[in-house]
């Protein structure tokens, strides 16, 4: 069994295939502090990709509430239970990955959901961790009573469990951008991928009887445009780009900056050993550090501290990068923050967007002589 290096767990691990990183790895950072669960991302994806027969229950993008929500039901609780103890020694994971915990005769540890597990995508939405029965819950930061939203898509992992599980190699990872795709022609509907993806982001199509997954809107990505879930985000929480390994991180690449330089962006469930490529800025007001560490790994305290510095006005660069999120539908490969603005550049170095760090103030007089009309404040 080949050994591959997984930087998120700080060590080598078993993987059924030789480790070969793509030329570029598509990735994104989601700022959970900004997500309002408007589900626009969910609707954008569903309208585009899963409006067909057999796809009714599929949400390649979903937004669930933590701690009490999940889609499909209890996906995270179940995989963490199957994994056993997950101990970290600093930044090195000393527990078992999905592959290391595989029962004999299996490639990874996993389970096949019941159809009913998919039936309540909004279960637990907006439920606080404890009931809000006392006034003290409202008046402290971080909150004693809390919840936050966790938007999820396929993580296009560097070491995907789905790819490893398919006995026919019907799932592949594109060498040009690391996007993980399921060959619709090659699949024979065994659903080993559905069983072993811990995030449950591979779905069986009831009508075509083969499985499907998020394609990261690769036709758009190929043309330098962000996926639909990213560029339609109302809260502008999503920074889409390409992530490097830590040794090759470029400080002027927005995703590298968030993940490797400021380290505000953390992987989801790194202990699974997949090197997932959707990163999360943890919710700074949640008063349960252990819960956040279970979800995002050992970097939580540092990430929250770094984010707070930006909130306090002490990190213009970080503020600038975050303001570039969803400011354009083009993929921003490089950024610069100077003279009160954040600039985003495409692959060829052309400026595609310019965002002021402080929203300019406009003063409008009550009477407009050009239109000969009075302005009313109707807000």
């Amino acid at each position, binding site marked *: 069994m080949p050994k591959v290096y997984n930087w998120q767990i700080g060590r080598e691990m078993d993987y059924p295939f030789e480790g070969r990183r793509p030329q570029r790895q598509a990735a994104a950072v989601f700022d959970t502090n900004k997500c309002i669960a408007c589900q626009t991302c969910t609707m954008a994806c569903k*309208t585009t990709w899963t409006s*067909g027969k*057999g796809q009714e229950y599929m949400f390649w993008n979903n937004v669930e509430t933590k701690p009490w929500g999940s889609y499909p039901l209890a996906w995270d609780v179940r995989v963490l239970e199957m994994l056993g103890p997950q101990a970290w020694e600093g930044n090195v994971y000393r527990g078992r990955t999905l592959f290391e915990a595989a029962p*004999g005769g299996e*490639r990874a540890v996993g389970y096949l959901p019941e159809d009913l597990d998919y039936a309540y995508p909004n279960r637990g939405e907006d439920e606080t961790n404890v009931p809000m029965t006392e006034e003290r819950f409202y008046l402290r930061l971080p909150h004693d009573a809390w919840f936050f939203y966790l938007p999820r898509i396929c993580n296009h992992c560097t070491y995907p469990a789905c790819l490893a599980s398919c006995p026919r190699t019907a799932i592949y990872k594109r060498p040009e951008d690391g996007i993980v795709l399921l060959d619709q*022609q090659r699949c024979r509907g065994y659903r080993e991928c559905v069983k072993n993806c811990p995030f449950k982001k591979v779905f069986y199509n*009831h009508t075509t009887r083969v499985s*499907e997954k998020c394609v990261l809107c690769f036709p758009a990505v190929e043309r330098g445009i962000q996926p639909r879930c990213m560029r339609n985000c109302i809260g502008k929480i999503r920074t889409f780009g390409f992530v490097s390994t830590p040794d090759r991180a470029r400080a002027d690449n927005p995703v590298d900056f968030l993940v490797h330089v400021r380290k505000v962006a953390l992987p989801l469930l790194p202990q699974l050993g997949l090197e997932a490529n959707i990163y999360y800025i943890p919710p700074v007001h949640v008063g349960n550090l252990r819960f956040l560490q279970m979800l995002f790994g050992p970097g939580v305290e540092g990430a929250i501290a770094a984010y707070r510095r930006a909130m306090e006005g002490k990190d213009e660069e970080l503020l600038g990068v975050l303001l570039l999120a969803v400011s354009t539908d083009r993929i921003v490969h490089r950024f610069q923050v100077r003279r009160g603005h954040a600039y985003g550049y495409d692959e060829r170095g052309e400026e595609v967007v310019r965002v002021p760090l402080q929203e300019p103030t406009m003063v409008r007089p009550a009477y407009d002589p050009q239109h000969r009309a009075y302005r009313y404040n109707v807000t």
Partner: protein
Amino acid sequence: MAAQRITRRQALAGLAALGTAALPAVAQAQPSQQPDVRTVRVPSPLPADPEAEVWDRVPPTEVALIGQAMVLPTKMRPSVRAVRVRSCHDGERVAFLLEWEDPRADRRTVKTREFKDGCGVMLLPQGAGATEWMMGTPKMPVTVLHWRADWQLDLDQGFQDVEAAFPNLAFDFYPPLVGAQHPPKLPEAYPPEARRWLPGWYAGNPLSQPRKTSPVEKLVAQGAGTLEQLPTQNATGKGVWKDGRWRVVLSKPLRAADAREITLTPGGTYAVAFAVWQGIAGDRGARKSITLLGRLRVEP
């Protein structure tokens, strides 16, 4: 990238372990795990139905099934004990009748956890050995006839769509089908431009074609994980479940229609193995109960 495999030494050791594990310690005669089948010549036309009288005149062979321990995911214990095999030909086509016990007929593959019953006949040239038995090698392709209970159901009762498993299904509309019948019934309601929303169908995956012409597929493999349909799909068959028993006919022309397919010549000897999938046990792909490689003698 190669499919996940166990080494040949591990495979043969696993095989030996499975072989002994599958033989219960009882006094009565146990069927062999190695088939020894005679394909009897009968007059045309070949029986297409498992209930046809002709089968009574074809001598059966009982073959014990073992688990699959060569390739991940494994199925260490077979969930079906044995399969009864009959075979005949009429100079044009060869047919097999496979019978095995299964307490429940699993025919539908609409829900995420629904897996179908199935059986298979794997044909190789004489001289094939343990390595070739593992779904062929690059040098020796295997021809596989695979009967599927879900395709049988599609043929017997019409295409099983989402509504078959979710009768109370409700939806607003399927965007490309605005104006079409409600609910849209495949395949009639789907004009070609709307098929993009059925990606398996659009990509030409045989599993996704709503209209089936036979419950048996004809496939070729050159190693684990390489199974694919042959270009000419001219295998036929029929499977019937009654009183806890499947009886399935699989048939193909003696002569190969495609490059990597096997031709069976009357008077010839070949290698053969059988497989059974049990939906109730979650069988699919490598999770199957199989026989060892044995002999097939085709009567002149």
